């Protein structure tokens, strides 16, 4: 009986499709290149990539814990706004983020002006320290938001029990927060690590030289300059393997918090006073300044040129928004399907399908799809569909990670009740699950929409004459000396991304409230 209550899920088919989307292009590139190969310089690139990604992920995740904790237990005016703004840095196209960081930490930036004024040596943004700073700027907010969702999964019943037992901050941490973190942190660290593994423009611009060569750059070089497809496939294969290894490790380390069922209510943790209060306030203040500084710089840089933007910006912006909305909606359906299937029992296939797309190189994905499509149809006719497809695959891992812990909580809290009412299929989804997932679903769909706005990786090979998207216009403008217009177009891109993110995120939070 119980097994019949579970509707036949399309999840395995979907997972297989996603894995094929990662594997087939890689195979096509390897086949065309007649094999896989690696050069001696590639091993140095692999080593550097792993080192910078591990450090970036560790720093971002460890810093995010106290920040998320402070946000979880403090209430203050502007808290909601700060949480929304946390989405912004992650959504910045890498090139724009770098310009924002330069204005604050660069040679003629605010920080160095201050250091100079008091006679201290200046800070150089170029080198490993610059790469790490940029990655923390981009990923700390994402990690914070993901961990903050974790705090909300601690059932109110447990918090009240802790209160009645007279738990202090330390006992609360040990018995409630630590188990939650053991469930949430591996997934967060995994996502950040994989993002940093494939990071390209940030590392190359701030890395300082060829010592900072990443796998992604080596792939770019192999495809673009040497047309050595077997080397490109070899490197892309290594990248997927590293990611699969990390995903496996994260999966092994993850422990279910095991809070048991609650009644789906949330209660904020007690906010301790004294030095902890000062610490929380100080930390939130610092993080706000760190995140807002570069964002403000991007805005100020882009505002003056807005009036002189070329007319082609408008249709390109409309095209980008349409692509982003389509990608985000399809992506949320797919991620929810996978998360629902994986929440009930461990499903390695689904886990892999929802993680590996992150590790695939955009360039290899694009090149492979191009090779596959070309015998049948002119790739130029496929620019927008391929972009949507690639966006879905690349954004799905984030949405999946965001949804999974909450889907588990909902099923733990309401699964048995729904079973006993024989509530299955669509009614179960509509009346039990979706209303309780509004918040993470809104946040995740917002992330997917905004990511899809900025994605340029795969479309470059397919782009025809009249299908330019906004990121392509930005790159055309910078390629033609028009840095001011490019800064303004980038500001429009960032604003639209953020508006989409904000609409979904607040929509989700309102629906949940």
């Amino acid at each position, binding site marked *: 009986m119980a097994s019949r209550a579970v509707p036949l899920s399309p999840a395995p088919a979907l997972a297989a499709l996603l894995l094929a989307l990662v594997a087939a292009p890689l195979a096509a590139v390897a086949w065309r290149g007649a094999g896989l190969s690696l050069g001696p310089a590639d091993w140095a690139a692999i080593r550097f990539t792993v080192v910078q990604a591990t450090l970036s992920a560790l720093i971002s995740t460890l810093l995010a814990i106290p920040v998320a904790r402070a946000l979880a237990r403090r209430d203050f005016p502007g808290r909601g706004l700060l949480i929304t703004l946390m989405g912004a840095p992650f959504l910045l196209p890498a090139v724009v983020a770098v310009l924002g960081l330069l204005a604050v930490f*660069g040679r003629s930036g605010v920080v160095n002006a201050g250091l100079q004024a008091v006679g201290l040596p200046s800070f150089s943004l170029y080198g490993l320290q610059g790469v790490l700073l940029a990655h923390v700027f981009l990923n700390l907010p994402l990690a914070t938001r993901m961990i903050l969702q974790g705090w909300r999964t601690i059932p109110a019943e447990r918090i009240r029990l802790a209160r009645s037992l007279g738990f202090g901050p330390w006992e609360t941490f040990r018995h409630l927060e630590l188990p939650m973190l053991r469930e949430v942190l591996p997934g967060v660290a995994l996502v950040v690590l994989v993002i940093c593994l494939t990071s390209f423009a940030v590392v190359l611009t701030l890395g*300082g030289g060829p010592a900072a060569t990443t796998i992604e750059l080596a792939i*770019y070089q192999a495809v673009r300059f040497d047309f050595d497809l077997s080397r490109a496939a070899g490197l892309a294969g290594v990248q997927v393997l590293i990611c699969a290894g990390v995903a496996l490790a994260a999966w092994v380390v993850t422990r279910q918090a095991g809070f048991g069922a609650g009644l789906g209510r949330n209660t904020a943790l007690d906010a301790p006073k004294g030095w902890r209060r000062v610490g929380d306030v100080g930390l939130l203040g610092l993080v706000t300044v760190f995140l807002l500084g570069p964002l403000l710089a991007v805005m100020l840089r882009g505002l003056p040129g807005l009036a002189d933007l070329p007319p082609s910006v408008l249709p390109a912006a409309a095209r980008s928004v349409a692509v982003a909305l389509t990608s985000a909606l399809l992506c949320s359906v797919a991620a929810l399907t996978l998360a629902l299937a994986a929440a009930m029992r461990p499903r390695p296939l689904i886990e892999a399908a929802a993680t590996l797309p992150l590790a695939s190189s955009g360039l290899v994905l694009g090149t492979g799809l191009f090779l596959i499509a070309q015998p049948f149809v002119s790739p130029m006719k496929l620019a927008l569909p391929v972009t949507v497809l690639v966006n879905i695959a690349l954004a799905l891992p984030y949405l999946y990670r965001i949804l999974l812990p909450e889907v588990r909580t909902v099923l733990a809290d309401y699964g048995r009740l729904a079973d006993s009412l024989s509530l299955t299929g669509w009614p179960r989804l509509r009346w039990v699950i979706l209303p309780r997932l509004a918040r993470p679903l809104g946040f995740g769909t917002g992330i997917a929409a905004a990511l899809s706005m900025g994605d340029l990786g795969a479309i470059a090979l397919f782009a025809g004459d009249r299908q330019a998207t906004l990121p392509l216009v930005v790159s055309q403008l910078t390629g*033609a000396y028009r840095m001011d217009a490019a800064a303004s177009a980038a500001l429009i891109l960032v604003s639209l991304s953020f508006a989409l993110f904000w609409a979904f995120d607040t929509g989700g939070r309102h629906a949940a409230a």
Partner: protein
Amino acid sequence: MQKQLLAAGLLTIASQAMAETPVLTVLTYDSFTSEWGPGPAIEAAFEATCACDLQFVPAGDGAALLARIQLEGKASDADIVLGLDTSLIAAATATQLFAPHGKNPTTTLPVDFTDPTFLPFDWGWFAFVHDKTRLPDPPKSFKALAASDLRIVIQDPRSSTPGLGLLLWVKAAHGDQAATLWQDLSDNIVTVTPGWSEAYGLFLEGEADMVLSYTTSPAYHLIAESDDTKAAALFDEGHYMQIEVAGKLAATDQPALADQFLDFMLTDAFQSAIPQTNWMYPAVTPAAGLPDGFDTFRPTKSLLLTPGEAQAARDAALAEWQAALSR
């Protein structure tokens, strides 16, 4: 049924329209096709004479063009590839995808350049660009630059054509001493960017004293922004050239039209659009001459390796560069 009829009808109309106006597809780099690039003016001018539909297809930057053509092979829809440069010619010829042009045009290039497969359409000298108000006395050679404490941004030779141009420039000017020179330069290099636009952006934001660009870059600021503070430093060793070329694909289904376009490419209608949209020197100086600012920074000595020499020197030069800058 009705839908099928409609589709069949549309197809017939479409194929008739195609039969009436032949389409010439030109694969080129992104900034060439944009509305502030040379593309639109050239498209209008050529279509006025050819009774055809000229379509520019953007395919990333110069290096990406060759990769794209190699990916597509003989099945490519493109008839012409426009925007490869001298350091890519040897690799492009080796693909055997291009057909000889069979022409012998007169150009105004400062060096002798003839190639059986590729015709030049514009060219420039690489140079380090700086701001006169911040750096009134720029270094006059690579050696002086390396000895100074000036900060420069350059492009990666593994991902950008100017980056590769600098590599060949140092090789052509300093030969066996190139490795030493790169070691001396390494403490001047702030960072190495993936492409030209990132480097130029960093320079404009004040992150570096000089940036690798072209001698014609200051003319952009002068003409488009009325800003005469930018200048190009002239080096005693001479300046390496970038010649941008176009070639006809052997598998084109419009060979006559492609030939007609290559002829048109070296006429005034095409060439006069180049200086103020592509910010390079036209391959044939137009009757009306060059705009202001194009004669301000003219090197007296031009350096250029032949396509074969460039191809042969590349790998060793890249290894030298990588070793010197990885320390």
